[in-house]
């Protein structure tokens, strides 16, 4: 076991003791695609923090730094604009991985009409029908039943309407705190009961704001709760995008084959506080250091270079490209119009 894990706490100990995922392999093309997506997530969020402190965005803003391997590992293993994605209040990066343009996400955070929710949703309510993003759900657990409904539609179209091509899989993302909520258990039960094509992706970052995971739950190993429902459960190194991707691929394959749901617990960590308003006073330096040393983007960069899949220069070029994309998103969002006050009450009803 990694000697630094002891001082870093139980969550770190679990990661350190995790049975290795086995030798990972990825093609150069996929490796660069994953690197690009994770870098976009990171740089986008860093820019959000900057814009928040400059007073360009408001309200509660929850950043995803540190957890990129989960969004990229799962969503990039799925089919864009075919499979469905369901997120939480920490949804910016899921939206980006799903293909929502950075311009639309940044515009939404600025409250602009060009935002993916037309400035009506905000940071915690990103939606895109075009990119099959079922939305960011701000209350704990409420997105899981919605995701279950999307998975039900897949099965309904296949088995009640006889559409053999209906094989869309839904991924529901949520955190460790949600796994103590009734909707989690209710939906695991129904998903297993009806063999629905869904991935329950737990981003266990140990902290539900200030509540440490092992202070909130009787059994911290969330993936084992799958067994109670007779479904596949897997624990994975959430700082290793290739491990997450491989686990997601196994789960997606099962789901598409009609073998039902999977509970995937990704051990991860958020590098920033719960939100930009969180003073982050409870997490120890030893813990933060342990996880910072396992930065998933740096880990992938090292993997790609060690295996001769990409050079440092190539990775730099990707970063430069991403920085340009994020800068473009910012200038686009700054210049974009606000919603028309005459449309304040539009979108209440389906007809307008």
């Amino acid at each position, binding site marked *: 076991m990694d000697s630094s894990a002891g001082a870093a706490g139980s969550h770190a100990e679990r990661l350190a003791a995790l049975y290795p995922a086995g030798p990972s392999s990825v093609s150069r093309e996929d490796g660069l695609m994953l690197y690009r997506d994770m870098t976009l997530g990171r740089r986008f969020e860093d820019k959000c923090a900057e814009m928040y402190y400059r007073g360009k965005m408001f309200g509660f803003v929850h950043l995803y730094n540190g957890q990129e391997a989960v969004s990229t590992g799962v969503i990039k293993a799925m089919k864009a604009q075919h499979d*469905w994605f*369901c997120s939480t209040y920490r949804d910016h990066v899921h939206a980006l991985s799903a293909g929502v343009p950075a311009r639309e996400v940044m515009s939404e955070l600025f409250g602009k009409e060009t*935002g*993916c*929710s*037309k*400035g*009506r*949703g905000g940071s915690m*309510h990103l*939606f*895109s*029908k075009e990119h099959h993003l*079922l*939305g960011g*759900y701000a*209350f704990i657990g*409420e997105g*899981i*039943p*919605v*995701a*279950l*409904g*999307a*998975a*039900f*539609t*897949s*099965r*309904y*179209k296949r*088995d*009640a*309407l006889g559409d053999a091509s209906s094989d869309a899989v839904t991924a529901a993302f949520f955190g460790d705190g949600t796994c103590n909520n*009734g*909707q989690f258990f*209710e*939906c695991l*039960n*129904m998903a297993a*009961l009806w063999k629905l094509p869904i991935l329950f992706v737990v981003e266990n970052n140990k902290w539900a704001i200030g509540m440490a995971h092992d202070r909130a739950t009787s059994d911290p190993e969330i993936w084992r709760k799958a067994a109670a429902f007779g479904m596949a459960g897997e624990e994975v190194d959430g700082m290793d995008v290739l491990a997450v991707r491989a686990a997601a691929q196994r789960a997606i394959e099962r789901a598409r084959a009609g073998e039902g749901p999977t509970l995937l617990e990704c051990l991860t960590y958020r590098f920033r506080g719960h939100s930009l308003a969180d003073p982050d006073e409870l997490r120890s330096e030893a813990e933060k250091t342990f996880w910072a040393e396992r930065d998933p983007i740096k880990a992938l960069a090292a993997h790609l270079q060690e295996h001769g899949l990409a050079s440092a220069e190539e990775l730099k070029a990707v970063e430069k490209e991403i920085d340009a994309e994020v800068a473009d998103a910012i200038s686009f969002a700054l210049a974009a119009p606000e919603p028309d006050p005459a449309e304040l009450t*539009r*979108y*209440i*009803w*389906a*007809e307008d």
Partner: protein
Amino acid sequence: MAETLLFNALRDAIDEEMARDPYVCVFGEDVGQYGGSYKVTKDLYEKYGELRVLDTPIAENSFTGMAVGAAMTGLRPIVEGMNMGFLLLAFNQISNNMGMLRYTSGGNFTIPTVVRGPGGVGRQLGAEHSQRLEAYFHAVPGIKIVAVSTPTNAKGLMKAAIRDNNPVLFFEHVLLYNLSEELPEGDYVCALDQADLVREGKDVTILTYSRMRHHCLKAVEQLEAEGIDVELIDLISLKPFDMQTISKSIRKTHKVIVVEECMKTGGIGAELIALITEQCFDDLDARPVRLSSQDIPTPYNGKLENLTIIQPHQIVETARQLKAGRI
């Protein structure tokens, strides 16, 4: 033509709409094999199969949320609250998701869902099974609320609710399922947003809904014998109110009584009278009157229960007073 019981009228509406549109489905507790607690989905499981008439575990919050996700991805679910009171457990999904999601998503998604089931005060069912949630849900943006009161409007409104692209909370009444009458022939649909002018009159307007329509009819009979000519309107649509029909009536009678089964505080009548005061103030010759249930949990004891909700004699007395200018 034979008469149809109200629960069968609802069943026929759901059956016809399921036959017409393969995306229409039913979720709920005991809706399938059992046929629904009040038999509103009787035999539909056999006819349409276990996915289209889905027996769910007892998990109101989650199966209501599931309906939202299913609606967002193309289905048109009807959710049965075995008792509407149970939907308190799904309040979050009805409010945050069904009601608000189209707006917060900037129009990305529509949520064509119907949430239906028995509400109201039954016969000694105890407080939890005797709720009038129409008042609790009234403030939620983005949902339509209707209350049915006869086999004819039950069928026509159910068909309209299923075809509507918005979420509709559809209130039936536990004591009205066995009403029976002859239904209009053919594929008729009632407008979700139109009140029903039950009886024309010139002296007093009575606005009511659901089971209280029938209490009002009893009162009207007696008032008629006394020479008091009541205009009786069944609101049908509790959100939005059909203010056109309502204000037209008040312009004629200049007097209004609201008779409701919900509690007085924060009730349907509270909002309705506020609107009447705003929009019809100059047409009123007397202050509007509310006859509502007591602000208490519905007691089990039969006598106390009767005292909790409005009875026909109270409607008669109030109309007399109003007509005589004593209110």
